[in-house]
């Protein structure tokens, strides 16, 4: 167990090191923070300050699915594509680690990056508490939902990255899947779909979507079902990645 943990730690550290020793992490963090800031405070966007409500649900958390849909594939595209294109995967697997450890360690490093992204938005919690008396339980629950959603997108990105050597292809494929996962629960899309799809299938599509599960966290409801949904997506992504790599 100790060796397993040690190997896992070493690999996760190596991955994180590679993020922070190249400009990727910094560009990613800075871009995300600037864009979410503009979306939150922008006049015809979140309009946080002018709305005057001590609540982050509408001005801040509403944008997370759309932003993570673009930023998470950018983090996740290099998880395996880079190793595959450079041919370093074989080298990696000659080390005393197995595929499961490698998949988990790389995923953990990526998830840590996403945690950092959300952590750097916490001045907004201070801001909203300075301005009024918000419902901090609701804010923390929305943060948890946001992190789980980003982690679920990352696991999808991991699968796409393992499928192809080309990072751009991986990025586009992840983006399309994430977009479909958001849109499948998006009211206007469901509105169009119901003309052609039977009601049972429509309900299933709605159930698979990220949107209603994330919406509950935004409201301040942490449910077993929603948590399990995100965990299921993460488990699916990690196991499928592992399977793809094993077959390669």
């Amino acid at each position, binding site marked *: 167990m100790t060796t397993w943990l040690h190997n896992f730690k070493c690999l996760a550290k190596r991955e994180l090191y590679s993020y922070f020793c190249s400009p990727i992490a910094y560009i990613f963090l800075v871009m995300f923070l600037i864009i979410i800031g503009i979306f939150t405070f922008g006049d015809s966007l979140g309009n946080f300050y002018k709305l005057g409500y001590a609540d982050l649900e509408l001005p801040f958390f509403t944008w997370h699915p759309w932003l993570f849909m673009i930023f998470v594939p950018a983090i996740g595209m290099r998880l395996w594509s880079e190793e595959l294109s450079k041919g370093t995967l074989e080298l990696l697997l000659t080390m005393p680690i197995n595929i499961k450890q490698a998949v988990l360690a790389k995923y953990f490093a990526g998830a840590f990056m996403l945690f950092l992204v959300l952590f750097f938005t916490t001045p907004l919690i201070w801001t909203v508490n300075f301005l009024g008396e918000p419902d901090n*339980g609701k804010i923390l629950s929305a943060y948890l939902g946001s992190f789980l959603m980003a982690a679920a997108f990352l696991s999808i990105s991991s699968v796409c990255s393992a499928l192809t050597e080309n990072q751009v292809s991986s990025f586009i494929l992840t983006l399309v899947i994430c977009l479909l996962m958001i849109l499948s629960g998006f009211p206007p899309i469901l509105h169009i779909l119901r003309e052609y799809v039977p009601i049972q299938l429509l309900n299933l599509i709605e159930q698979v979507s990220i949107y209603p599960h994330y919406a509950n966290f935004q409201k301040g409801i942490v449910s077993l079902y929603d948590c399990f949904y995100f965990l299921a997506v993460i488990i699916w992504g990690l196991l499928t990645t592992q399977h*793809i790599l094993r077959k390669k």
Partner: protein
Amino acid sequence: MKKVFPSFVYGTFLAVFLIALCSIISLFNRKIDVTKNHRYSLSEGSKHILTNLDEDVLINFVYTESEKRLPTSTKQLAKRIEELLKTLSEESDGRLVIRKIDPSRERELKWAATVLGVEEQVPHRDNNEPFFLGLSLHVGTKTDLISTVTPEDEGNLEYQIMSKIKRLTRIKIPKVGLIAGVNVVGSNAFSYEQDKVNKNAWEYAKALDKDYDLKVLNYDTKVIPLDIDLLVVIHPESMKRQTLYAIDQYILEGGSLLLYVDPASMTAMRDNSVASFGEQQIRKSDFYLLKSWGIDYDASKTLVDPENAMAVDARHKKDPTGIELGVKSLQQESPVTKNLQKIVMPFGGALAIGDVPKGVNIQVLAESSLSSKLVPTTEVFDPHKRQLSMSKIPAKSYPMIIHLSGNFLSAFSHDDPEVTDNYIKESQQRANIIVVADSDLLEDSIWSQRSLDRITYKTIRQKRFDNLILGQNAVNYLLGGKELISIRNKVLSVPTFTKVEQLRNQSQEQLRVEFASLQKRIEVTSERLRELYKAKGTSGQGFVISPEALAEREKLKSALDEMYIEKERLDKNLNYSVDQLGQKLLWLNVGLAPLLILLFGFTVWQLRKLK
């Protein structure tokens, strides 16, 4: 591709397995409500009512579930209503039974839904089918109805259901008496000519009528019937002594009273189409009995509170005659005001604690800020006069809502002509009184605004302030039922930026003083200029003006122009400090964290270069 295919099959099977597992888990779903006030959990009041049910309750949940062409928001809403009903049923230990009726399944069921009274809702989009979403409640032979549920009703639904269950299971529905000096019940004439609440009535009267046995009493009544459990008096203007005596005796018999007095009732003035604000036109409630209960109330003065001033336009221009009382101004120990976010009192008055009779307890439920001043009502409507008057009056905090309980003394003596044979001088039973120093706060347009329902595009009333909840809480409390209060208090407004409001009030108050002095200077200068023009005509020199007078006139004219420019500048700067704070926070949130990250990255890069 060959390599990927087994993984594709594997991934698909795994996904199907996980979706199936998710569906199973959804059947045993458990939720934690982490919101403040547990907004999405059953309140203690609901639990108390449900665990103490003596009779079986049946709720028919009428919902067009099988209809494909339903708005998604309606489907999600229906799901949440079903979950709420399920939780209620679980909590009732089998006493509450839920029956689902889907009118889209069979023609008979559609007919049944219509018979139950649930209304069909027609979405505004053409390709959406009409649908049913409503509840009918049954206890024995008694029934009640929530004919439509819309997304706007959701926050209030638990209260609506529980108040109806409470009403249906009550052996005796409390009787509430109403005496109003304004048109509360919605008649075309004065309210006291009407004994029933009609569709034009204030929402407050409608709510009382729905929840209790409401009896509208004659404005000149000589006696308050003994079976009245609570008397609500709104804006008692020039009330006859015989009615005051009836109220006095009702209190001494241990009755409960909810009283709304107002030094300037805008509603009464509007009802009487009053256009000017002279002393004769002001409609004030004077209530002679307050003195004997230990409350000093000056009906000729209105409270002005610059710190809690109410925003009157989109630019957040504040009017200190409209008072917004937030959490800090409301008593958090009393169930009546606990958890209310904000109430507004336009042209309200002030109450003061006077000679309180022995055995009477007083609790202040709401008070103004320390910067508030009591100004003669005649001077309140003119900003300039108001400012002048305010500069002469010391500022202090005033109670605006007071709760009195205990044994009271009569305000009448044996010699008074109104006194009857069964006159009571001193109360034998404890009485409860809540006095509110404003009556306009209950008027619909003050606490709510009209908007369109998102699905059906029907006009609905949307709450902006908690005034109605305050009124309902007070009634519930005086009738001795705290369960419904705890449910209603969950229906709260979204918290606003109190810091911004404080800042805005402070800066606007400062500007208001500058504005008033500038206005004064403009008036003096204009007067001087007028005098100069007059002097020109009477000096006997005809149209010839002396060079000194001309110079003086030009000087005054340019001074006046400057003053007008300054006035415009002040007007534009109303929100200057608030905008400044907004800019600072924007840079702090958008700029600071990225800057720190870039600095950290730069340091790492430099260190690596050094290595």
